[in-house]
């Protein structure tokens, strides 16, 4: 397979959210990439597809469909089994369905649902929603050094089989999947491009693993 610096990476800009920060992060970790906003522009020699995203699930899925990217991404990841990375909303869209402002079907690449983070009033304090800020990551394997990542979301992934949980954070009493992975598919709930040097390191290491 490819290495981080030689891989042909395509970032999908479907008009939702700010991809500049993702682009900056990729550049910083030594990746070269092409950014496209049309399915026809996706280079034939793409090795890895990145799906960023910020905003609302329903509206974003609509945008993906409008640009014929929904079927393309599904085919890419599920049929062709090629590497796919989802970031923040892009990660949530990998799942079966979301209950954000209605009920919306996702790409269904990883089983699980996206639900609203409930308000929590615990003895340790009030946990506001959206979950905004830094939380420590817990890893299932000890191969990653500990650190905190930056989360900003009101919805989180639930009902996902444990097999796909690579890292989580605790928000009050709620376990929030932070990094998920299923074969050729990888997802980050937090913003690796906004989590300092630690986030950049995680982005690099996990993508390297995916490309192997």
């Amino acid at each position: 397979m490819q290495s981080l610096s030689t891989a042909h990476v395509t970032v999908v800009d479907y008009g939702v959210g700010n991809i500049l920060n993702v682009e900056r992060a990729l550049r910083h970790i030594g990746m070269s990439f092409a950014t496209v906003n049309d399915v026809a522009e996706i280079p034939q020699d793409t090795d890895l597809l990145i799906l960023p995203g910020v905003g609302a699930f329903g509206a974003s899925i609509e945008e993906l469909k409008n640009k014929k990217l929904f079927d393309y991404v599904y085919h890419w990841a599920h049929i062709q089994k090629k590497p796919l990375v989802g970031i923040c909303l892009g990660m949530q869209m990998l799942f079966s369905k979301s209950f954000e402002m209605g009920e919306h079907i996702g790409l269904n690449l990883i089983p699980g649902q996206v639900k609203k983070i409930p308000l929590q009033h615990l003895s340790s304090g009030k946990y506001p929603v959206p979950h905004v800020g830094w939380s420590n990551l817990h890893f299932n394997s000890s191969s990653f050094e500990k650190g905190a990542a930056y989360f900003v979301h009101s919805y989180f992934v639930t009902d996902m089989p444990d097999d796909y949980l690579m890292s989580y954070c605790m928000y009050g009493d709620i376990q929030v999947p932070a990094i998920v992975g299923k074969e050729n598919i990888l997802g980050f709930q937090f913003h690796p491009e906004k989590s300092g040097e630690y986030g950049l390191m995680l982005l690099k290491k996990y993508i390297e693993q995916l490309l192997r």
Partner: protein
Amino acid sequence: MIRIIPRLDIKWPNLIKGIQLEGLRVIGNPQAFTANYYATGADEIILMDCVASLYNRNSLNDLIRQVAESVFVPITVGGGIRSVDNAKSIFRSGADKVAINTAAIASPDLIKDIAYNFGSQAVVLSVEAKKYDHHKWLCYYDNGRENSGLDVIDWVKKAEDLGAGEILLTSVDNEGTEIGFDYELIEKVSHSVNVPVIASGGMGTLEHCHQAVTAGASAVAIAKVLHYNELTIPQIKKYLTEKDLKVRV
């Protein structure tokens, strides 16, 4: 974790500092300051454009771009954002959130519109609160110059309903004085909404920061003590850790 957020007031091309949102003093180059803050552990950065005129719009975008190039933590930009298009151009320059005040008071639906297009988490309601009676504060705008007549508590609740994802709460009375935050204000607001509250205005000592958190703040925005190097971010974080609060190290 409690977020420590340096707040930079910008009068292009300078970082400035005011007291009680009046009287400005040039401190230095904003980019140099943000680079230092990022390197020493700032959890986010807030950039407030204090001139906020349309004429200066490009300069601000240039600054955001420069800052975002090497600062890999979230950047919030405020000052003179009047429309969804203004917000869009700021996001495109590299900002993650926009802070709005004056325009939101004039037209509250702006909150809803920006939230709809970019998500609630991208919309921070900036509140400039001035005490006018026991347990009551009024919302000021236009960089603390004009009185809107709106009660702070009523306004933050309304803004939350409209989709604001966070409240940046500045005490006009305490800002720049280093006498401490307005803890009662922080407490009242954080009990009235379910979104995070960022306390701003008045930090002078390490203990002030601790008290702001105890009062209910999820994050603390700090200007003067950091810009004048009276305290550093590592010192603040160490102190909060000693008080059993969680911070990012």
